């Protein structure tokens, strides 16, 4: 940290006062004293009167965890006794700055002993970890003759959670797994989920007898007894496999266009929240610049952990070749695998097909934005894009022929129809191809 130092203005004042004073005497031009006098008075008055203290800078962010679209404020508090002016420069991430906002301000110094506060509005425009600062403060004292700084100091990180997309599914997962939960199991069991009425069998509890139906059937005259049939409720294990190896399209933030990675991250967060609220266990594997594996677990803490993993996603710098898509290990055969991918490259199709052949119920969520086009770099770009789209469509159809449902993410209820179909397919006789 540096102290207060003389500025160019002090040397200018001294040079002009001395030089012009001498000229006024030598050339007998007293009119020059009209310039010498305020320079001298200002310098002497300012330096003799002002005793600036050591400034201290604090940065306070009202909320360091925000959902996308939320608004917050960063407060920069500068204690600078004796300072006449403060230049406060607070660069913030482009995804936190409101449109047209300046991150630098020149404000008056404290008129009393209290600190000077500068408010910086923040708008969480895109998920991720975004920096506020480092704050650079320059203080001026004695009419600009003394300067402190520029001193670069404190900074904060704001975590913006990708949670604007709500997913309200109604369909059950194809193969429920655990012993407790809210999904209907194909097995019969004790629950409030009524699936029909069946004939009494030895072992049925008396409280399950449906007396109305049994009486109509003549149970008192020696006829059959009937009981309410219900199915067991089970929880499920859902594995979200996020392919972040490529980001297609440009991101415009929460209120603009979405890139492929935006769609994938927001869909992953929405799916995770939905299934965790149901009591299911959710795991996550992300493939971006590194492979991150979050084992399946349930509860609110798992949602927090999962969102933290999503915040660090960055598409890798692809130089040549296709980045690998690692096969998930130790995966429960009954886990529902939701693969979120822009379906770019060849590996993702092979991986989805392999998991389906292994017997996992796999759903592919296509996160490629419809308006994503590469920059036109040559006359061949458009033709190459058409060829690539044809090739991609062919692979998508091949994957669909294997029985892998592929849906585009549309938020609420995107997966319902797919999960219903998978459930029916799961209860039917399986033929492995």
């Amino acid at each position: 940290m540096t102290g207060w130092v003389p500025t160019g203005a002090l040397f200018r004042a001294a040079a002009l006062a001395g030089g012009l004073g001498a000229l006024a005497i030598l050339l007998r031009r007293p009119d020059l004293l009209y310039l010498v006098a305020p320079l001298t008075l200002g310098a002497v008055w300012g330096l003799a009167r002002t005793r600036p203290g050591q400034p201290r800078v604090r940065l306070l962010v009202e909320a360091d965890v925000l959902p996308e679209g939320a608004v917050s404020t960063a407060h920069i508090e500068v204690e600078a006794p004796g300072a006449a002016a403060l230049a406060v420069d607070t660069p913030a991430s482009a995804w936190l700055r409101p449109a047209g906002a300046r991150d630098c301000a020149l404000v008056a110094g404290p008129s009393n002993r209290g600190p000077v506060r500068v408010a910086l509005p923040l708008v969480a425009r895109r998920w991720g970890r975004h920096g506020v600062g480092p704050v650079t403060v320059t203080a001026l004292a004695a009419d600009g003759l003394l300067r402190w700084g520029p001193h670069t100091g404190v900074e904060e990180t704001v975590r913006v959670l990708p949670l604007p997309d709500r997913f309200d599914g109604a369909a059950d997962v194809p193969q429920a797994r655990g012993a407790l939960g809210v999904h209907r199991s194909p097995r019969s069991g004790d629950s409030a989920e009524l699936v029909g009425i069946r004939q009494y069998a030895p072992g049925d509890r008396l409280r399950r007898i449906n007396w109305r139906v049994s009486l109509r059937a003549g149970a008192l005259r020696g006829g059959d007894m009937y009981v309410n049939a219900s199915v067991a409720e089970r929880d499920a294990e859902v594995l979200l496999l996020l392919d972040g190896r490529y980001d297609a399209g440009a991101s415009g933030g929460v209120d603009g266009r979405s890139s492929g990675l935006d769609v994938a991250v927001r869909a992953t967060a929405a799916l995770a929240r939905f299934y965790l609220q149901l009591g299911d266990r959710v795991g996550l594997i992300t493939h971006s610049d590194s492979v991150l594996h979050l084992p399946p677990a349930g509860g609110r803490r798992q949602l927090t952990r999962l969102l933290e993993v999503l915040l660090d996603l960055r598409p890798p710098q692809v130089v040549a070749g296709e980045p690998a898509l690692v096969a998930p290990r130790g995966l429960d055969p009954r886990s529902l695998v939701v693969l979120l991918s822009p379906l770019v490259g060849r590996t993702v199709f092979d991986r989805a097909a392999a998991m389906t052949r292994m017997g996992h119920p796999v759903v592919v969520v296509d996160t490629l934005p419809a308006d994503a086009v590469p920059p036109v770099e040559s006359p061949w770009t458009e033709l190459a894009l058409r060829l690539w789209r044809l090739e991609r469509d062919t692979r998508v159809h091949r994957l669909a022929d294997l029985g892998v449902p592929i849906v585009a993410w549309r938020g609420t209820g995107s997966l319902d129809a797919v999960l219903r179909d998978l459930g029916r397919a799961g209860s039917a006789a399986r033929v492995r191809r």
Partner: protein
Amino acid sequence: MIPRVVLAVSALAMVLLAWPRPISFAGLVGAGALVGTAWAVGRPGSVAPLAVIALAVLDWLISVPDPGLLRSAAFGVAGFLVHSAAALAHAGPPGFAVQPALLVRWFARAGALALLGVVVVAATGPLAGQRNSAALVLAGLLAATVLAALPVLVHRRRVPGPVRTGRRLRP
């Protein structure tokens, strides 16, 4: 941006108050002052403001042999505003949003100092024609003291070092 605008306008006022003939050495110096103004607006922390004031004073000395009180006072005020605006503009880049309260406080203080200087010089002016005047000697001594005090104050201001905060760790 406003401090830079004040700097440019004040520098222009200095050149206009000298009003040099275009085709002359004074005109050339005035043109140099205008070029220096553009430089000073771009880099107010450099020697450009000093050069602008120096060139404008040279222009003034050549073009205005016998100025009146008002013209001299206006020239002095404009020169001091160039200095003061450059000091404020040096605090940050042109894109800085300047708080209106700061502008008012800064330039009101600069204007007050400039007017005080004019009053002091105008008040001591009548003494200049008197020989063997005790008041003239006193004013001269006062001015010399102030000019001598300035370098001393500049030297003393190079002092404060870093302030240690927090607890010292024991080995």
